[in-house]
């Protein structure tokens, strides 16, 4: 079943690593502005699902459709271009480029999209302000705290105004206070820009920021609201 108005839809995804079935017939969909939490224990396949949805890896079978595009039918260069233009990413440890300043890190996706340096940095500065880390602009990632770094990573993910944000354990390396602040800022900003958020987490309090939760276990997905619909 493909819910009407979905932005990103996956059907019957299968992905194996050797003998391990990471995804075993997974269906998934998300609407614009929706926040969906993907939960599950370690090794359940939730990160693999995120990678397949984002076109980082191709499933063994099944399709991923983004708007009118079939992501699974694209070549590597097309998928890279799609990720550059329409997707944003937040990882557990931020994965900021250590040699660039925080401002340059946030501006990087824009620059990869061909935006001029000054224009990119102006946008980046706005996002840093919005994420309440404007004072980190001239610093390198190694010179800021973990919480600040993760907010910079969120700013980087949002800077290019993506239509889908993929967040893989975005608060996994933060204390609860910082984690909650980061989640508030991320989900607020996403809703403001009508971006969909695929949030991979194993923490219930992080999943609480989502509109909907699905659980991945042994490569299969269970939609927690399915029974209520």
């Amino acid at each position, binding site marked *: 079943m493909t819910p009407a108005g979905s932005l990103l839809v996956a059907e019957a995804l299968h992905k194996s690593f050797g003998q391990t079935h990471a995804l075993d017939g997974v269906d998934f969909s998300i609407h614009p502005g929706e926040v969906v939490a993907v939960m599950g224990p370690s090794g359940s396949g939730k*990160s693999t699902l995120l990678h397949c949805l984002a076109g*980082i890896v191709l499933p063994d079978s099944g399709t991923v459709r983004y708007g009118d595009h079939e992501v699974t039918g694209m070549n590597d260069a097309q998928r890279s271009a799609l*990720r*550059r233009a329409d997707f944003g990413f937040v*990882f557990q440890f931020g*994965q900021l*480029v*250590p*040699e660039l300043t925080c401002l340059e890190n946030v501006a990087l996706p824009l620059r990869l999209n061909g935006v001029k340096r000054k224009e990119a940095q102006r946008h980046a500065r706005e996002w840093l302000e919005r994420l309440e880390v404007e004072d980190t602009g001239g610093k390198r990632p190694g010179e800021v705290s973990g919480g600040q770094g993760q907010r910079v990573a969120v700013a980087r993910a949002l800077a290019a105004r993506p239509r889908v944000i993929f967040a893989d354990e975005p608060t996994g390396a933060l204390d609860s206070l910082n984690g909650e602040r980061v989640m508030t800022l991320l989900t607020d900003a996403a809703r403001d820009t009508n971006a969909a958020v695929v949030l991979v987490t194993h923490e219930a309090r992080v999943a609480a920021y989502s509109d909907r939760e699905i659980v991945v276990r042994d490569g299969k997905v269970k939609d927690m609201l399915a029974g209520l619909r």
Partner: protein
Amino acid sequence: MEKDRRHLVGRWCRDLGMGVRFAVGGGREGWIRTALTALGVGLGVAVLLTAAAVPHAVSTAVARDQARSDTFSPRSTAATDRTLLVAQTDTAYRDRSVRGRLVRPDGDRPATPPGVPRLPGPGEMVVSPALADLLASSDGADLRDRFRGVRTVGRIGAEGLTGPDELAYYQGSDRLTGVRAGTTRITSFGGGPEAAFPATDPQLLLSVLVGSVALLVPVAVFIAAAVRFGGERRDRRLAALRLVGTDRATTRRIAAGEALAGALLGLLIGAAVFLAARYPLSGIRVLDFGVFPSDVVPDWRLAALVALAVPACSVGVALLTMRRITVEPLGVTRSAPPVRRRLWWRLLLPVAGAALLWPMAVGGVAMVGVWAAAQVVAGTSLLLLGVAALLPWLLDAVVSRLGAGGGPSWQLAVRRLQLSTTAAARSVSGITVAVAGVVAVQLLLAGVQTNELPDPLPAPREHQMVVADRDGELPVAGAPGMFERLRETRGVRSVYGALLSYAGPLPSEGHRAPAGGAPDEESYPVRYRLVVADCDALRQMVRTDRCVDGDTFYAPPKVSREDGTETGLLAADAPPVPRPGTRLAVSPDAGNRPAAWTVPRTVRTVDTLPNFFSLHEANLLATPGALDPALLRSPSTEFEVHLDPDRPEAVEYVRNTAAQTDPRLQAMPLWDTSTRSSERQPELYDIVRAALQAGAVGVLCLIGAGLLISVLEQLRERRLLLSALDAFGTPRRTLGRSVLWQTAIPVVLGLALAVGCGLSAGLLLLHLVHKPMLPDWPGIAALAGTAGAVVLTVTALSLPLLWRLMRPDGLRTE
């Protein structure tokens, strides 16, 4: 006290041993690190062992060459059972030299050269294995004609050759009839002056010393860098050791032990690489000078020094590096914040080096003896190490001013370098030292050679050859036949020939000719070069608008100038202009009663044209109608041969025609400047220059290997980040270009510094030998090009790993 010392030594041994055990038994991570260090150290050790083997290889090759020499052999005027006549018939085939000798024993028990148990008889020859192979192959088809009618009866043994690939032969001949200008009678082979390499020539010694320092210092720098390969992984392991209670001093010693393991393994790898490389190395010929693999043996003292110094160096470098690192139980911190690099102490090294060399440069102190050599080596080493010390400061100073305004790839590279230039400087310093040293030595060699040996020859001529019988072996009667044969040779367009001899005052006018041999200037202070040729040939030699058979010309000698642009007779020694009607003796040195010839009344004074006929003296040029060639006694014959540009093999056909007429005829292309210069310049300079260039390329490749390992290690450390960059759509080419910029920026800066410092050092060294400066720009450009190629190769070779690391596997954290 004694107990404390024993305790300290024991603790060191225990900790170093523990480090060694960690290195070899530390699982995959430990093995990777040890293998990286061992590989780097091994490559460096192989180069050092090769360098240590060079003196023995060269001296053995020189000894082999001397043992077969007939140049300085004891001579005899009388034929005996032991004597033989020998004539040099060296030739060339394509770009390779062929050593040749004609031999004719006087008796039954002639002396034989090394490697030849029996001299070949007439129509026979013995050849080197390489020449035999070439003659038997399709490649040697054009060479076989040169030996038409000569039967190969044996091989020259290894003891009679300088290298396994040498082309050489001894041919028996009954044409050798007695001692003449090109034929000598010897009683044995060998002899000659003691090998002069390199002690008696201070300029050459200086070049060799500086060249060795220039090539070996980067190897030492490289080995020091190799000890740090995989340092990041090791540091994480040391943090774990601190967590279980090891103190800082112990962790440093354990780290040194790990480096020691890599260095020891590297010694073994280096020895194995050296042994394996001896065979391919012996195949490399420098100026036709090769060596047998068995001759490539390192001096045992130098080998022992390498075996001791490399492990000691690894321990020292590891301890020194660890002083700047704080290993804590929860991780490793560098001695942050990064300190601003100071310039003043970095200048001390080159200043100290210059201070050591300066007194020798300006004081006119002779560079003689061990101390002087040590002073030069120390001064040069300090100068070159100064370059390595200046590089990090220069990198910091320049990189910090570079804007990040270019594309993302430029921004990533510049920012990466701004974060830390240490790794970049460490990798590039070797290139910098090598290039600076080689630039200095090339400058020195260019200055020495150019000043001493001005080239009086005109510019090389494409598609022209000269065939000459400069020893008068070809009978005058044979000259027309030779002329015809050359003209009919495939690929020949035109031939100009001339007979050359001398003319001087008649003996009755107060001068007697010597009994034989070359003209004696003491006996004949007034002497003219006599050239007999037709008008076509004369027009190739002199500037004249009209010439008919019966004409005679006088071309005054060129006079030497102070700047060496022309050579010839000094003005004071030039003979007077021959007056018409003057009676001269023709070929006065060829025996008694030379023919008399009267200078015609129509003689005209003309200028000579630049050409390859022997026209360096005062010349009388006559057409056959003015001077009957039959009057000349044993004239030398020269032919200028113009070839068809579309027949590149014509040169071999001409050589074959000449050899079939008489192997003693010289046939030389006029466009081959190396052949021309080698006739005039000491070969040792060329060997040093060529060895230096080959060594520089080798060292640059070695450093390239180090650079590659360093780049790959950095990429592996950034695996997670690269995957993340790929995730948000960073194109591969952006990251590929970033690696290129990251490698190229330090190398370009290093090269600029190296060329600047190399030229300065070269200038100083030229002062030592009082020579003018003449930079070898093509050589510098070639080195810069090689370094550029190293950068591109390193980048290209790192791309596969980069692509692999950009896969999503790196994002997995569970």
